[in-house]
């Protein structure tokens, strides 16, 4: 029976090619708009390390100026980075199962075979915990040891891209490379790893959140060993009468916040203990004259951290809503056209009813026709949507905005959009199919 209905449906659709094209086109446009905006929205809002959402915590303390908040628009929110004093003290705790500190410094890489001039490579100073906590995949080798953090030993981990550039992607583990003119041993090369958004470090505004990751990684203490000023985000406040910040020593003792800290706390009990530890430190420092703002120590889960930094842009939300309004208009349009079309063909349904077809069968027959429409609209919409995503990427190719950077074909987003297409079009077809199913045969037979 289904085959017969399908044949009838195709016949009916081909009888009015203009209307059919119009309906399929309208559904496809609506679906494509939804695919593009949903994909981008989904990619922006997702948590790239959801499986560790309940064990990883970013640490913040409000060390800011007592006279005014860090962010005047959100006075209760502490800076998202820590000062050197606080970060190094908190890092000394052994309550967390793992812990890490993050900052960016300048790096120049040289000495690879065949390399003429040094290349600039944004370098992350961090600790071994970084690779373990964030499940960073390695292509060759692995993270450095805890002892390398202490030394610090001259060990370096290269990103996939940098290894491609310097060693043509070959296994470079064990080789020596010049990092800022010092000899470093390569201990690991990352596999391709570029979580978006860059959840572990959301500083750097719209570009940084979705930007690429560092090209090289070295132990955190190399920053202070070599007096390398951080080149990522840094915010400072100067107390009245305090000398301006000039030397690296000034920086380490300053109020400047420039270090992101993460801890891994597998149980609620550990989480409580670590928060108590932070609070005790706060109280001690508060008594000594620092931390004169209200106590605002916080451990943020990854999902909370992403929300706190308002990763999903307002433009994205706006475009998503408009795309849905557009789809609604397309569907209402389809309901109208289907209704008109079915009712005009109602005499045919009348004849079939008179010949013994039941109401349910007429309904089913028309619903099959709707399903054919929905499927064609969805497929065309998918193609248009993929083209649309490429268009968005091209549009945003040279932009600070993150919108284009995440506009990639994403199976989950597209599955959502297709499901939406199918369900909504079928729903739109329900009423017209039901209406025509209700026609009484007598009325149409009379007028024949």
């Amino acid at each position: 029976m289904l085959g017969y209905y399908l044949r009838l449906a195709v016949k009916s659709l081909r009888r009015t090619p203009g209307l059919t094209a119009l309906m399929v086109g309208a559904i496809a446009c609506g679906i494509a708009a939804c695919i593009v905006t949903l994909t981008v929205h989904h990619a922006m809002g997702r948590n790239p390390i959801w499986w560790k959402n309940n064990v990883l915590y970013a640490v913040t303390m409000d060390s800011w100026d007592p006279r005014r908040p860090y962010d005047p628009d959100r006075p209760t929110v502490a800076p998202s980075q820590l000062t050197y004093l606080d970060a190094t003290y908190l890092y000394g705790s052994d309550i967390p199962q793992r812990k890490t500190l993050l900052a960016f410094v300048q790096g120049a890489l040289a000495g690879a075979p065949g390399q003429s001039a040094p290349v600039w490579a944004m370098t992350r100073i961090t600790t071994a915990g970084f690779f373990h906590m964030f499940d960073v995949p390695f292509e060759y080798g692995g993270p450095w040891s805890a002892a390398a953090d202490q030394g610090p030993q001259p060990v370096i981990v290269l990103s996939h891209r940098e290894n491609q550039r310097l060693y043509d992607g070959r296994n470079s583990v064990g080789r020596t490379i010049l990092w800022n003119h010092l000899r470093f041993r390569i201990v690991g090369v990352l596999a391709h790893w570029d979580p978006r958004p860059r959840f572990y470090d959301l500083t750097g505004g719209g570009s940084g959140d979705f930007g690429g990751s560092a090209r090289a990684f070295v132990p955190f203490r190399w920053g202070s060993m070599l007096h390398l000023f951080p080149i990522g985000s840094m915010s400072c406040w100067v107390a009245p009468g305090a000398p301006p910040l000039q030397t690296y020593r000034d920086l380490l003792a300053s109020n400047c916040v420039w270090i992101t800290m993460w801890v891994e706390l597998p149980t609620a009990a550990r989480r409580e203990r670590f928060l108590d530890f932070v609070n005790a430190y706060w109280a001690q420092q508060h008594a000594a004259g620092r931390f004169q703002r209200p106590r605002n120590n916080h451990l943020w889960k990854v999902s909370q951290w992403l929300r706190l930094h308002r990763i999903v842009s307002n433009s994205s939300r706006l475009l998503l809503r408009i795309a849905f309004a557009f789809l609604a208009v397309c569907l209402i349009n389809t309901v109208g056209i289907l209704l008109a079309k079915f009712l005009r063909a109602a005499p045919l349904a009348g004849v079939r009813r008179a010949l013994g077809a039941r109401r349910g069968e007429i309904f089913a027959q028309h619903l099959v026709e709707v399903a054919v429409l929905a499927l064609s609209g969805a497929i065309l919409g998918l193609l248009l949507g993929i083209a649309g995503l490429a268009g968005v990427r091209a549009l945003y190719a040279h932009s600070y905005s993150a919108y284009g950077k995440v506009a990639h074909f994403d199976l989950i987003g597209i599955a959502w959009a297709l499901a939406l297409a199918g369900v909504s079009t079928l729903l739109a077809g329900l009423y017209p199919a039901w209406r025509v199913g209700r026609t009484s045969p007598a009325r149409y037979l009379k007028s024949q």
Partner: protein
Amino acid sequence: MSLNLRPLLSALRRNPTGALLVTLQVSITLAVLVNAAWVVHQRIMRIEQPTGINTRDTFVLQISGSSNQFNAAAAESEDLAYLRGLPGIVSATVSDGVPLTGDGGNTGVWIEPGQQGQVTLTSELGMDQDGLKTLGVRLIAGRNFRADEIQPYVPGKQAPASEAIVTESLAHALFPHGNALGKTIYSSEPRTIIGISRDFMGPQLGQPTERTIIYPRLPGQGGYYDLLVRTQPGKRDALLRLARKHIAAAHRYGVVVDARTFAQNNRRRDSGNRNVAILLALVTALMLAVCCLGIFGLTTFNVGSRTRQIGTHRALGARRRDVVSRFLVENALILTAGAVLGSVLALLIGNWLTLHYAVPRLNMAYLAAGIVTLVAVGELAAWQPARRAARIAPSVATRTV
């Protein structure tokens, strides 16, 4: 022409579903159209906000030391001497931030010592006496820095500058009653305002962008500095390539991190707004098109299903014009209903946008323009099928189908 609405209304009443659907479409389209146009207008205003900078003939090279053996002070004076000696270069300066990019510092400024009273937040930029000329920014009061006022970079011991040039907006924010010139302002150090420049967009991209304070101070902290260069018209790209190549090879412990024209930086700065405007306009235009197709479809259907009725009407003496206007008036009724419902919807959405997205309150002129546009386009969509209806011969009424 006498128009009797009664037969129209009864026709609508007999088959209300189609008309209702079009009303719904029209109202949603109107609501989105009006608000999208309003948001696009806001974005375009932000794009068209002048930068105040010569973005045509300028480029920037960002230099970073790759070791703490890098002597930034020596390197920057070498680079400046090289750049200033190149034929085709109008002016070059060294700075600690790059306007239009977000790369640079900001600071709080007070008009009383000891950080008392109200603080004004502003972008800050350390440059030498050629800075304003390089950016193409004119002074409107006071004077430029003198060469002897520029504080060189001395690692760990740089003397604070005691002069400052502020933009018009910053001068007004600090001293609303004018007379900023010659006044002392306080950030980490007290400084005298010796000049007021025209507004230009500083390094920080947050609002308000055109507040900037300039210090006579050379960069170098952290082994990092920016070379800003202005060339004669048409020579920018060639000189950018040349300078980049030379400077990349000039320093043993320094690398060129980035080399870009100001035009590229400016495109990147406003591309977010421009692209959102493009996407919004595109979706709204498609929506309007689909809505018109809906109107076209409904009118075509009505014409088709009322063929005999129209024939009878014509046989009874209606002119072609009457038939056309009958359909257009019927369509106008639907459009009016859609416009009323859509206006309510548009206002609700506008209100919601104001509350949640900080979009200014919807301008009523936009609503009025939206209604006019939609009604005009909607009538146009119904016109072709209505004309086809007018061509139906009266004899159709007497024939059986």
